[in-house]
Structure formats: structure tokens, C-alpha cells
């Protein structure tokens, strides 16, 4: 919402008091803001793609403010005209974060107050009091600001038709971040229901730049089965100033592997010192903890550096955010080390530098993070990329080039998940009895479900009703029943209540609170101690008393478990014994992978790389070969008593893990005696007891057979059948679909067993009902997520007949990083880091001898 140059609006577009308000602030209406006002006047749905700082939110709300300011809209009557004229909500605003909804509501108060507009704005989140929520249903505000979960809850209520019957506009903020998740699926279904309640409804999407804006525009528009895809209008604001991105120069020695960037800590501190407030982004919580600890260990100037990640206590996070808002001032901060918890959210004016430690993973993701620095459109955001190892140097370089080229690699919108659909179907029955034909038409008007066939929909309804089992024994316990008129209705009020308690698509891992206690007197205090935050229960299950680990920036010693809490004490020393899980959630994007691959193949592009990285690649060219575009290079070499194979596939860790699982099965069958494998974002390493190089030379077809696409057929099925991996995915699906209830806080204390463990349910379901709808949902979910099947399939198709075997007599320079990751899971603290360094030196000496 800052000044800009644009010609004055035509007088009829902006009412006088708006024009005066703009003029009073010294602002002009920007082109994209004008376009949105026009779309509003014409009642059109619209997608606004705009960079941070472009006045996106104001643009989204302007049409509603103008409409509500006009006297004629003040007396809107209920459609049914019953009793006293009541107004429903005029504009619904949906944000992925409740903090953002609250913040935007506050920002909206300024123009409303300054122009003296008769408009009420309220928020509704999980924190809103029951009293206020009740009141909002009876006397709703003109503009309601909320989250996707609250929309689902409101739509299931009896008041939904009156509340939303006169809804004119729904605004989705940060739409790009919502649509690729199950949350987006549920929201799409809710949009379809809103349209049914208010047929003329206008949907407005606010989004950062994405790879395929047409997809987002279609998400906003109602679809019809069998007809061409419909899209909302699109408005694109001009990009802001290009960001100024630097890669930390490689004067210090760049490690071969690892994600810590310890070598760069002094340079990171210097960069923080030169900025007002910096955000130091990392990829995982464990990385955040370690980088934070390293920064403080070297923080001789006493810079004010804080930590922010999803496991820390909420109050602690709020304190950090408040300090961020205070900027670099006396109560502010110089830097905060953060994970994706700060990717989205409210604007902090004083952040003028983003430091990205570790792999950027994707161009769009990096651009989004960089946009967190400086919210002024006309000034470049400043960013510093800090690669933690040599492959990450290549990845940072590729990301920098991609950003300069404006390339985007946001993931495509997937087909809507069936577990989400099941939750929605029951929610709609909770709202009011429904006819299957009507609900099917409504559901398929949502883009993610536009291709849902009727048979699958009916199976989902059947699942919701009686569990959808071939054994029809649960008819008498049905959650919804078909009545004489053919409509489906909820069997009893308990069903509705349970649904409300379990709404939403975000499934937390079972968590334990982390409580700090003092056990120095040799006994554990019965009460007291500060809550530091919470961590996954499974983490503590592997610990024994005395084990030390990092949390909240300090080394803690595990004392005991009590109820649903993990008791910990402060530990001496700074080296935790238990390493943390390193794997980030996001694999390297296809786009960045292609750029890294192209860079490796083209010596001419090496000019910008640090000398030690260039030397590394030169050594690779000399001792082995550089992987070329379009091929899959596979090195084989003996080492110790094992025989190694490295496949440079560049398809991201998840796809490589799946490839590793399937490939080792096939190698086993081919008599190659595989012993294990390791995957990172760039390649897959497999080791075996048989001389792989010799076997591939002896049987020229063997490699092609091993990498044949048919591995995604029976081998995949066979592996999935025995894999424990799917149990985790099934748990999420079962909770979202309402098969089992969420574990609510406090239930553990009662000691009562409230649900059957989902892995037991999975085993029974898989062996007795392999075609069950939730088995299908689980497989589809895993294929798109944990297993990354699509990417693997694309790669296998691409490299058919383009396998390049490079037999070597010893490890190659390019193979050193992946070889160092073997057994890396168990590498704690700095002593081991030093050992690792030695191991690395030994390996590289061996490679270049």
C-alpha cells in the first residue's frame, strides 16, 4: 500500500470519498487495483497475481469496501424476507494462517475508519470465544476474516444458508500456498458449497507468482463435467524490482556433504550485522537448532538472534514475532533463524535481508522466502544464499539463475483426495439432508474433483454411511442413512458432534510436551518446570534417560516420560549425543534439477562457481565423466569389501528412495546381492556383495532390464504390500476421513484407549478389503507425496536406452558426497563432524590418487 505512479482513475470508478482518501495519502490507484475494482463492479471472479508489496490485499478488498459504502447495499434483505431484515456476510476472507487473518483485519480498519465507512469487520478463528462465535452466526459482520477450517465448520451449521445466502465476494489470500494441499481440496469443496448457497458469488484469489496461473484461475471458477475448463479472469501486477541475490563467496573450505554450513558462520554473522533485521531461513527444524547454536557460539558482538520453528512453545514464538515487529529498534531483533513457519504471514517492515542456509530446493520457494525481506515494491529485496556443501553450490547457482529468469516451479494442483471428500460429504450431511445427485454435481464443480467419476463418489458416500465394507454388517450403525425421499441424513446428533471435533485436514504427529525440570538433587520434582515446546512422540521413544539432544537452542538431557510430557534437564557441554532427522520435507524441484544437470554438462557455465567447486568438477571429468543432459549416468566401483553403484538421476530424494527400494528388489532377483542403498537429492547409491561393474559389462542388457519402467508395476505393488511406509500415510487418511478420531489433548491422561491403533486397522483392511476406498486414498496419497512416483516414472521413460555405464576402479569425485551420507544418520556434534571431515579427506584422496 505505498505510493506509485499511475494515472488518475476515471471519476465513476472510485467514489468520491475513496478518491479523496487515496489523494490524502498521496496514493494513486494502481493498474491492478483498478482492474480488480472493475471486476468487482462487473461481478466477475478474478485471480490477482502480484509480488509482495504491490498492495495486493487492498486491491482484493477495494470492490467490497466500495460496494458496502454505498447506501443501497446497507438495506440488503434476507432472500426469504422472514421477520426482521437480517444481513448475512457480504465478503468472506480466507487466509491459510489465523495470524494473517487477524493482521489483515487490523489493516483494513485503517481505510474504514479514515473514510468513516459503515462497515463491520470481524475475525473468526480457533481462538474466537464461543460467545462471539454464536453471536456472529446471529448477527454476522459485513466482512468476515477466517481460516479454511472455520469455513468448513460454518458451512456445516444450520445457519449457513442465512449466513452466506447473500455472500457477494469470497477472497482467498496466499492462494498459491493453499491449492496444492489437502487443505486446498477441502477449501475447493467449500467454495462449491458457497456458490450453491449464493449463486452469484464472486471468487477472488490473491497469489504470488506461480508456474501455471491458469490452473489457479480455474480453481476459482465453477467447472462442469464434460465441458471445457473454465477460468476466472486474470490480473497480473508488474513485478517489483529484481531481487539482489548473492551467493556467499567460497573462501572458506566448502564441505563435501552435510547441511550445517559451519564454515560460513562468521560470514553469516557479518551479514546480519550489516542488516537492520535479517531472517535466516533453513530447511528443517534440526538445522534451525544447530545453525542457531553455532551462530550464538560465535556471536562475539552480542547480536540479538532468536529462533522460530513450529515445535517451540506458542508463547515463545509470539514473543519472537513481537520482537520482529519491533524491528532493529531497542526491543527488536537483529536476526531470527526460522523454518517454513515464517514463509508466510504478516509483514515485518524492518526485515531487509534474507539469508538462506542450505539448499533452496525450488525457484518459487526461494523467491517466496526472499520476498520476506523488504515489502516495498520499488526497492530490491536483498538475499544471501549460503550453500552448505558442494552440490548445494551448484543448486544455489541454479536457483539464482532461475530467479533472474523469473522461472517458477510451483507444483501442479493434484486430483482431489478421497479422504477429504469423505470428510466433506459427512459435513454436508451435518449441514442438511442431501441428495446424492445434487451433491455430486456440486462436488464436481470444484476443480480438484472435476474428474471424479460417479462410481467413486458413490463409494465415498457408501464409506461415509457404513464404512464401505464388503461385509454389510454395519448397516445398523450407519452414520448417514437414506430416507424415504431418497435424501441422505445424519443418523444421530452424536455423529455431527464427532465430525465437528475432527474437522480439518492437518494431522499432527502424536506430540509430547517438553518440560524443563531440575533433577540435580537426584529426584524428579513432581510438579513445576517450564514448558519449552513439543516434539514428536516417536523421537522420545528412541531415547533412554541420559541421552542429550538439541531443542530450543540448548542441549537438553532426557530425564523421563510422564503422562504426555517429556521431562528434560539442562545438559552440560554443547554436543548433543542424539542426532536429529535431517531430511527436509521438500525434494529438489524438477526445474532446479534440470538446471544443475545442464550446468554440470556445460563447462562454459562454470565461470561463476568458486574455484574449489570448479576443481572438483574438473577432477570428475578427469577421473570419470560428467553426466550429460538427457542420459542417466551410472558409475560402478569397488570400495572396501563392497561394490558400489551410483546413479546420477537428479530427481530429488523422495523419488530416489523409491527407486532404491524397487531397484534393490530387482537386483536381488538378478542375483546381484544388494546390501543397502542411500539417496540424496542428486543421486542414488547402492552397494552390493557382487561385483556390479563386472556384471554390467558381462551382460550388456542387465542395466536396461534393471531400470525398466515395468518396475512401477508388479514390483511397486509387491513392495507397497509389505512396506511399513504406507502405515503413516494411512493414519492421516483414516483421521481425515473420520475412520478414527483425532487424539485430543487430555485424552491421554484419562488413560482410556479411545482409538484402535491405525496400523492394526491397516493390516486388517489390507488383507481383507484390498479394494477399500481408503486403501486407494492411501496409495494415491503416497504416490503423489512420499514416493514421488510420477517423477520417477517420467525419469524412467526419459532415460530408456540412454543409460551410460561408467565402470571405475575406485570412487569418483562426484560420488564422494553420497558416499559420505552412508550411515550419516548417526552423526552428532562437532567431534563426529571432525571425524567425518577426516573420512571425507580420505575418500577424496582415494578418488584422485
Amino acid at each position, binding site marked *: 500500500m505505498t505510493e506509485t505512479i499511475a494515472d488518475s482513475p476515471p471519476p465513476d470508478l472510485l467514489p468520491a470519498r475513496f478518491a479523496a482518501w487515496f489523494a490524502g495519502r498521496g496514493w494513486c490507484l494502481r493498474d491492478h487495483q483498478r482492474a480488480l475494482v472493475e471486476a468487482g463492479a462487473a461481478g466477475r471472479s478474478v485471480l490477482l497475481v502480484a509480488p509482495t508489496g504491490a498492495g495486493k490485499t487492498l486491491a482484493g478488498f477495494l470492490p467490497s469496501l466500495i460496494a458496502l459504502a454505498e447506501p443501497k447495499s446497507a438495506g440488503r434483505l434476507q432472500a426469504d424476507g422472514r421477520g426482521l431484515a437480517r444481513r448475512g456476510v457480504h465478503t468472506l476472507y480466507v487466509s491459510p494462517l489465523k495470524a494473517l487473518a487477524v493482521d489483515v483485519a487490523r489493516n483494513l480498519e485503517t481505510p474504514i475508519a479514515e473514510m468513516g465507512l459503515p462497515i463491520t469487520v470481524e475475525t473468526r478463528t480457533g481462538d474466537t470465544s464461543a460467545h462471539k462465535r454464536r453471536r456472529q452466526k446471529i448477527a454476522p459482520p459485513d466482512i468476515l476474516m477466517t481460516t479454511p477450517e472455520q469455513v468448513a465448520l460454518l458451512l456445516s451449521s444450520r445457519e449457513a444458508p442465512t449466513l452466506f445466502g447473500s455472500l457477494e465476494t469470497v477472497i482467498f489470500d496466499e492462494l498459491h500456498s493453499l491449492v496444492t494441499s489437502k487443505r486446498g481440496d477441502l477449501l475447493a469443496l467449500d467454495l462449491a458449497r458457497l456458490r450453491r448457497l449464493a449463486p452469484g458469488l464472486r471468487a477472488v484469489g490473491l497469489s504470488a507468482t506461480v508456474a501455471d496461473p491458469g490452473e489457479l484461475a480455474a480453481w476459482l471458477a465453477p467447472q462442469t463435467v464434460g465441458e471445457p475448463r473454465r477460468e476466472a479472469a486474470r490480473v497480473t501486477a508488474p513485478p517489483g524490482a529484481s531481487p539482489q541475490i548473492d551467493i556467499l563467496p567460497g573462501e572458506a573450505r566448502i564441505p563435501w556433504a552435510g547441511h550445517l554450513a559451519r564454515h560460513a558462520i562468521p560470514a553469516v554473522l557479518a551479514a546480519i550485522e550489516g542488516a537492520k533485521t535479517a531472517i535466516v531461513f533453513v530447511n528443517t527444524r534440526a538445522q534451525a537448532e544447530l545453525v542457531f547454536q553455532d551462530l550464538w557460539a560465535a556471536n562475539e558482538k552480542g547480536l540479538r538472534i532468536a529462533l522460530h520453528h513450529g515445535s517451540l512453545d506458542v508463547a515463545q514464538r509470539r514473543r519472537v514475532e513481537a520482537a520482529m515487529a519491533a524491528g532493529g529498534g531497542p526491543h527488536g531483533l537483529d536476526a531470527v533463524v526460522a523454518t517454513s513457519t515464517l514463509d508466510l504471514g504478516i509483514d515485518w517492515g524492518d526485515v531487509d535481508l534474507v539469508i538462506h542456509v542450505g539448499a533452496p530446493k525450488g525457484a518459487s520457494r526461494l523467491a517466496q522466502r526472499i520476498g520476506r525481506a523488504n515489502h516495498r515494491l520499488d526497492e530490491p529485496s536483498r538475499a544471501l544464499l549460503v550453500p552448505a556443501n558442494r552440490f548445494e553450490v551448484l543448486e544455489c547457482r541454479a536457483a539464482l539463475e532461475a530467479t533472474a529468469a523469473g522461472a517458477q516451479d510451483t507444483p501442479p494442483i493434484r486430483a482431489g483426495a478421497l479422504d477429504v471428500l469423505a470428510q466433506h460429504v459427512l459435513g454436508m450431511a451435518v449441514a442438511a439432508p442431501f441428495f446424492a445427485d445434487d451433491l455430486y454435481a456440486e462436488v464436481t464443480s470444484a476443480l480438484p474433483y472435476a474428474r471424479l467419476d460417479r462410481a467413486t463418489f458413490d463409494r465415498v458416500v457408501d464409506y461415509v454411511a*457404513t*464404512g464401505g*465394507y464388503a*461385509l454389510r*454388517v*454395519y448397516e445398523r*450403525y450407519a*452414520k448417514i442413512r437414506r430416507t424415504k425421499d431418497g435424501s441422505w441424513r445424519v443418523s444421530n446428533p*452424536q*455423529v455431527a458432534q*464427532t465430525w465437528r471435533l475432527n474437522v480439518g485436514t492437518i494431522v499432527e504427529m502424536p506430540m509430547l510436551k517438553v518440560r524443563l525440570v531440575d533433577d540435580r538433587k537426584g529426584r524428579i520434582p513432581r510438579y513445576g518446570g517450564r514448558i519449552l515446546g513439543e516434539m514428536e512422540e516417536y523421537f522420545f*521413544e*528412541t*531415547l*533412554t*534417560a541420559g541421552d542429550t539432544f538439541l531443542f530450543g537452542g540448548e542441549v537438553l538431557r532426557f530425564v*523421563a*516420560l*510422564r*503422562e504426555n510430557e517429556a521431562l528434560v534437564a539442562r545438559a552440560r557441554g554443547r554436543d548433543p549425543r542424539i542426532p536429529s532427522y535431517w531430511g527436509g520435507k521438500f525434494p529438489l524441484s524438477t526445474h532446479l534439477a534440470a538446471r544443475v544437470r545442464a550446468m554440470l554438462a556445460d563447462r562454459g557455465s562454470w565461470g561463476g562457481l568458486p574455484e574449489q567447486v570448479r576443481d572438483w568438477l574438473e577432477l570428475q571429468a578427469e577421473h570419470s565423466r560428467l553426466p550429460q543432459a538427457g542420459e542417466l549416468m551410472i558409475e560402478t566401483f569397488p570400495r572396501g569389501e563392497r561394490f558400489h553403484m551410483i546413479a546420477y538421476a537428479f530427481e530429488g530424494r523422495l523419488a530416489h528412495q523409491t527407486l532404491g527400494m524397487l531397484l534393490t528388489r530387482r537386483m536381488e532377483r538378478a542375483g546381484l546381492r544388494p546390501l543397502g542403498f542411500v539417496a540424496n537429492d542428486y543421486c542414488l547409491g547402492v552397494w552390493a556383495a557382487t561385483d556390479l561393474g563386472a556384471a554390467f559389462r558381462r551382460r550388456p542388457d542387465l542395466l536396461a532390464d534393471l531400470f525398466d519402467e515395468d518396475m512401477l508395476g508388479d514390483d511397486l505393488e509387491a513392495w507397497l504390500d509389505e512396506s511399513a511406509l504406507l502405515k503413516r500415510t494411512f493414519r492421516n487418511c483414516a483421521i481425515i476421513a473420520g*475412520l*478414527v*478420531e483425532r487424539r485430543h489433548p487430555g485424552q*491421554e*491422561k484419562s*488413560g482410556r*484407549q479411545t*482409538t*484402535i*491403533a491405525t496400523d*492394526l*486397522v491397516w*493390516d*486388517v*483392511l489390507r*488383507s*481383507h*478389503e484390498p479394494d*477399500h476406498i481408503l486403501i486407494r486414498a492411501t496409495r494415491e496419497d503416497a504416490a503423489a507425496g512420499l514416493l514421488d512416483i510420477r517423477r520417477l516414472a517420467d525419469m524412467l521413460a526419459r532415460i530408456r536406452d540412454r543409460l551410460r555405464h561408467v565402470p571405475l576402479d575406485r570412487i569418483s569425485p562426484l560420488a564422494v558426497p553420497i558416499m559420505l551420507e552412508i550411515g550419516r*544418520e548417526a552423526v552428532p556434534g562437532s567431534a563426529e563432524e571432525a571425524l567425518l571431515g577426516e573420512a571425507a579427506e580420505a575418500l577424496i584422496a582415494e578418488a584422485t590418487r
Partner: protein
Amino acid sequence: MTRSAPAIVVAGERLEALPSGAAWWPAEHTLIVADLHFEKGSSYARRGALVPPHDTLATLAALEADVAATAAARIVSLGDAFHDAEGPQRMEATARARLAALQAGRDWLWIDGNHDAGVAVDIGGRRAAETAIGPLTFRHEPKPRPEREILGEIAGHLHPAARVRVAAGSVRRHCFAGDGRRLILPAYGAFAGGLDVASRAFAGLFDRDALIVHLLGEGRVHAFPARAILGLSPDGTARRPTSR
């Protein structure tokens, strides 16, 4: 650390731990199972959680396999055979028939458990609150009295499970827990969960130095001493509350 399918000795009697979770007492041709929890699925369905109804059939199938493999002359069920007192009435006709077929020609003994003591219909076989065969006493809940006073108790009820550390992380499985004086069997039912032997419910039940757990594996069981169990405090007292 693991040994292959070992015998478990209780009060001098030799029993075999089967990977299904049943114990086989060759000297008496007796198969012992605990906590079958038949009709647990339908019990949940009745309260609105429509989990699969196949748990009874899955449990029966496992039992049929064990009976066929051992040719047992006697079956002892250590209680909680049904998840609730109305379980038998909800059991489908095919399942009832399969259960009856298993019972035919064998001595079938139901020990009452806290879940199924209220069963009021005929479910075949004999019923008892507890029973003794030779030096062994069969009951549902292990007696809480000091462990030295216990000799030869075979019990269920607690659904023992244990987590042990392995090369990459840790593994948790249902298990047999015994110290030579007492043996607690794992829950046999398809939907029966496990409770950590490190939890409070097991406090004081075993002589920690003699405690051995047999974790159920694929086609075999794996024995571990108490010191390999994650979360078991040095004095053998428990630290976790009930959470199955």
C-alpha cells in the same frame, strides 16, 4: 542380541513362544492365548467409529492356524476373549460356526476377563475365573503381590509390548514378558493394541534381572534381556502411564 524361537521356562515348565502371540505347552498339549478381543471392531462401530469388521475373522484365522500346527488337545483363553459382554451376540453366524468347529473335540477353557466377564450366553467350552493345571496358574490379570510370592502364573490383560534399539532407530512389537516365575502373554486379537512393559502398569510385576521379553516377528520371535528395552528404568519401575 536375538536368539531364534526359544523356549520360555515358567516354574520349571517349558513353554514355546509362537510368533502369533500364542504359547504352546507341549507337555500338556495345551495352546494358550490371551486377549482375543473378538468383536472389537463392531464394538467401536456401535459407538460411531466404523473401523473394519474383519478383526474377528482375522483373529479366528490365526487361531485356526495355530491349532492346526500344534494339534492342541486343550485351549486356554486367558480372558477378554470378547471385547464386551454383548460381543457374542454381534458375532456373525460364519464366525460362530468357525469358533464352534475349533472347539469341537477339544477341551476349551475360557478364563473370564474384565471385558467379557459379563457374557451371558453360551459360547461353548468351560468358563472359570482362574484355573490351575499342574504347577501353572492361569488367570486374566497378573496378581500385584510381591513377585517372590508368585510362582507359575500365566496371565494376560496387560497387552505387553516393548521397544528395543536396533542399528537404525528402534523397533516396537508386541511381546511375551516373563521372568521364570510369571509369564504375561501378548494380546492375540487383531485389533488389540500393545502397552509398553516400561509403563507403570507393569511396575513390580517382574524380577528385572531375570526379565526376558520375546518380541513377535515375522515367522519367529526375538528374545531380549531387560537392559535392551528402551524406557525401562534401572530399578525396573515404570515411567509411562497407560496408553495402548
